[in-house]
């Protein structure tokens, strides 16, 4: 058996089977247990090493050939698999509490498997095709059956699809550069194509309009899952590019370009979040900011930047999950999620409103919450290079904090005659409480999740050194 079969084809098969099952609880249970097993397997099973159990021995080979291409998942990728499938468990486990398990568990598992395949494929440029397949699979996940797809969904499809040819074209040019490294014109063209490709895939401003639109149209929890999986995998894919091509990694302008793009995303996301009146859109802009922060960590360079990049992953996943979960609960009471319509909801939905506000503040980097340690490291890293750069970043951050203040004000306003109650179900209360505690504990003890990402830099031969 090979590792790609275990972590790519088997999940695809299980996802296909789950689509045929009708019982929501069975789907959720199977998806969770199966994903848990995949995570445990990634944690415990060595790759390319013979294992002996009694008289039976087997080896999990790292490579699998398909259509002339290779899918390779080596020993170094195990931490990544633990992170990807581990975070998927969290998303799948909470889904039944908000009645989102049916499509999310099956299609979500398939999307996860395809995105893992995108990270495993060699030559790695083919990842663009696998990402596109995952995008196509997201369509039925994001659009309710029988409903006309909204503008955000169409825009998502267009922008992600536009990204694919740019990446593939750049691959074609890159082959030329390898043959003729002195051709500066070719290098410049390839760099522009790579830049455009990633701008579309990562929703760099101004190609980010699909995110807030989608947050308005679809279930916040489902979009939250998509907004966690896609940018994360695309960022890994981008790091793969940097790791693979020396000319790109050593380009003198790379640092300033990444810093500019990162600032553009953080400032545009933060400032636009400050002016939103829809709770879902605020989350959308926060995700844009987070992608910007990841790009800024890459701009810091070296192992320091890479360490902060990986450090952001767990708090981001957690904050996004709590925020999207809380939003989905509130949507039951207030389908529009407009600030004007959620007045006073804090008294009826205290757990959901607390979760939403804490997750928002965590992504803004408020001290004591999970997002603070990595954000603090980014701010300090940027400040040691340039104070004006960090001032721009803080401007964007204050935009997100301002949006949180407006949300708190809306939740707290309205009639104070109403009694405090909790309309959340027991499962929702338990999950949100776990979410609060995790946000607080990771804010105080960020070292607890270091083992989850400490081996991740080893994936990259050059960047991780």
């Amino acid at each position, binding site marked *: 058996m090979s590792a790609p079969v275990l972590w790519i084809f088997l999940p695809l098969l299980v996802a296909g089977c789950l689509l045929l099952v009708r019982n929501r609880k069975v789907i959720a249970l199977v998806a969770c247990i199966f994903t848990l097993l995949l995570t445990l397997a990634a944690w415990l099973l060595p790759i390319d090493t013979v294992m002996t159990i009694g008289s039976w021995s087997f080896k999990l080979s790292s490579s699998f050939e398909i259509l002339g291409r290779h899918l390779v998942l080596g020993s170094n990728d195990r931490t990544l698999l633990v992170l990807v499938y581990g975070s998927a468990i969290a998303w799948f486990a909470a889904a039944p509490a908000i009645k989102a398990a049916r499509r999310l568990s099956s299609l979500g598992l398939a999307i996860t498997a395809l995105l893992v395949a995108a990270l495993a494929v060699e030559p790695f440029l083919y990842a663009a095709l696998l990402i596109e397949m995952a995008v196509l699979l997201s369509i039925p996940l994001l659009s309710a059956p029988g409903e006309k797809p909204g503008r955000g969904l169409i825009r998502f499809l*267009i922008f992600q699809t536009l990204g694919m040819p740019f990446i593939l074209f750049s691959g074609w040019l890159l082959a030329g550069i390898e043959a003729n490294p002195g051709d500066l014109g070719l290098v410049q063209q390839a760099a522009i194509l790579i830049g455009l490709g990633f701008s579309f895939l990562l929703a760099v401003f101004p190609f980010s309009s699909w995110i807030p639109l989608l947050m308005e149209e679809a279930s916040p929890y489902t979009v939250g899952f998509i907004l966690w999986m896609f940018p994360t995998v695309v960022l890994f894919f981008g790091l793969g590019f940097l790791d693979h091509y020396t000319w790109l990694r050593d380009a003198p302008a790379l640092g300033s370009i990444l810093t500019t793009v990162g600032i553009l995303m953080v400032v545009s996301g933060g400032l636009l979040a400050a002016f939103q009146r829809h709770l879902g859109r605020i989350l959308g802009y926060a995700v844009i900011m987070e992608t910007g922060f990841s790009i800024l960590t890459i701009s810091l360079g070296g192992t320091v930047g890479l360490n902060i990049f990986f450090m952001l992953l767990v708090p981001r996943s957690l904050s996004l999950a709590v925020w999207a979960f809380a939003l989905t609960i509130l949507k039951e009471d207030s389908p529009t999620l407009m600030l004007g319509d959620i007045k006073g909801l804090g008294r009826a939905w205290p757990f959901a409103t607390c979760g939403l506000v804490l997750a928002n503040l965590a992504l803004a980097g408020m001290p004591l919450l999970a997002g603070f340690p990595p954000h603090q490291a980014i701010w300090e890293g940027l400040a040691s290079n340039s104070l004006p750069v*960090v001032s721009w970043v803080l401007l964007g951050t204050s935009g997100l904090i301002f949006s949180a203040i407006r949300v708190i004000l809306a939740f707290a306003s309205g009639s104070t005659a109403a009694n405090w109650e909790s309309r959340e179900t027991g499962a929702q209360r338990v999950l949100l409480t776990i979410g609060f505690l995790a946000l607080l504990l990771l804010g105080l003890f960020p070292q607890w999740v270091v083992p989850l990402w400490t081996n991740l830099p080893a994936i990259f031969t050059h960047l991780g050194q």
Partner: protein
Amino acid sequence: MLILLPILFMLITALTLVILRFVRPNFKYPWMIAAGGSVLALISIFLWQIRLPQSISMAPWQPVNLFFFAPTWLADGISWPYALSMIALAAAVIWTSVVRAESSPSAWAATLLLTALGILAVGAENPLTLVLVWSAIDLAELVAMLRSTEGEEQNQGVVIAFAARLAGTGLVLWANLVSTAGGILMSFRATPASAGIYLLIAAGLRLGVLPLHLPYRKENVLRRGFGTTLRLVSAAASLSLLARIPASALKSSLVPFLLVLAAVAALYAGWMWLRASDEILGRPFWVLGMASLSVAASLNGNPSGSIGWGVMLILGGGLLFLFSARQRNITWLPLLGLWGLSTLPFSPTASAWQTGNQTFWLAVIPFLPAQGLFMAGFIRHALHPGETSLESQERWTKVLYPTGLFMLAAMAILLGIWGWEGAGNLGQWWAAVIANVLAAGFTALALTVLVRLKPASSSSQWTRLFRLEWVYKTMTVFYDFFYRIAGLLTSSLEGEGGLLWSLLLLALILSVLSTQGR
């Protein structure tokens, strides 16, 4: 380990009270547990004196090449007087609750929990620890206040106060970044001159002094017990920072300007405190005014002098705000607090008017009338008839209640003699004499003329001015302007032609960047 002892006592007591509430709701002696726990904590704080300074750290944050500081707490000459004052306040709140209609174990648990957080804040050894504990206090206060407010306007005040505190926390983080940009890892021992002023403004902003703002129009239902703890402990958590900013870090051209702002805040708060109908309605002004005096001491290059005002904010304020049941023969008790405010030799505030090298002694002059106003207001409110009479209470409460109040007065006297490095001295006797003479004059005025005037209204022109409503209105105008621009941008990008607009914008950005690159 000694440093954790009072915190552990308070947390264990709070936890016991909460567990008992669920497991044995009819338990008859929760007060005994709360009072016992608070006294143990009070005794244990004296154990800090066995070895000062001492510190304790949490496990360092990893990776260590990214985080140079770990959350660390320090018991020293600055944190001890604040910690002692806060524990004395918590004990007094619980002991004096016997005369009030506050018999909720949850409120006592919350008082102990908040005090424990307050001690963690004043003991913060570095800015990282401080912002962590500040955030915990801010979140706790936000939840507690929102659960107890009585109207939309008050809710708005609570959220604005939270936002101002968050901005203060942000300024500490900014000070750290300014320091990092200068190649210095900022700690309270090594604060560069470029960052010190931000720390001071951060504390001032959190306290409502710099710029002067009063988010709360009136006090809410959390009145005497937990409300007093909430107000005073959260203020003390910010005040302790003032004592940790070295005078050398405050060499900025902004200092005179900030002194003027602090003087305006102190005089306004002093006047409103004197004119308030009762001490509870005047409480926001008490906190604001005492904080202004503390900020002024720090600006005058006298960080240890700020401790005097800080501890008197807690002890003097606590004495008066908990003095709800009154009787002629215990009026001397709150008046003992007056000693603490007098700046006379060997009082806790004796060193308050000393100035550092860089400030001229005349800089204290504008603050003396403010001190006089506070002392006069203190006397005026102490002489009120009160909410209830102590005479109607049971005999045992007649013993416990004054004992609780006396604890605060005794701590004030003790700290004046044996508090911290700046305590136990003669101070600036001439400033104390002027302030006390002014206080006598204001008291006479208050007891003769002011009683005939209408009490200060929360909707007066001055109050509206200092509540910064005009700032919020101006900000709203700007917000609406930028909202329209943001709306235009998003509607263009998200509309039917959004794709083309996106490409056009990209071309524009690229052309601007390439022009700059050349």
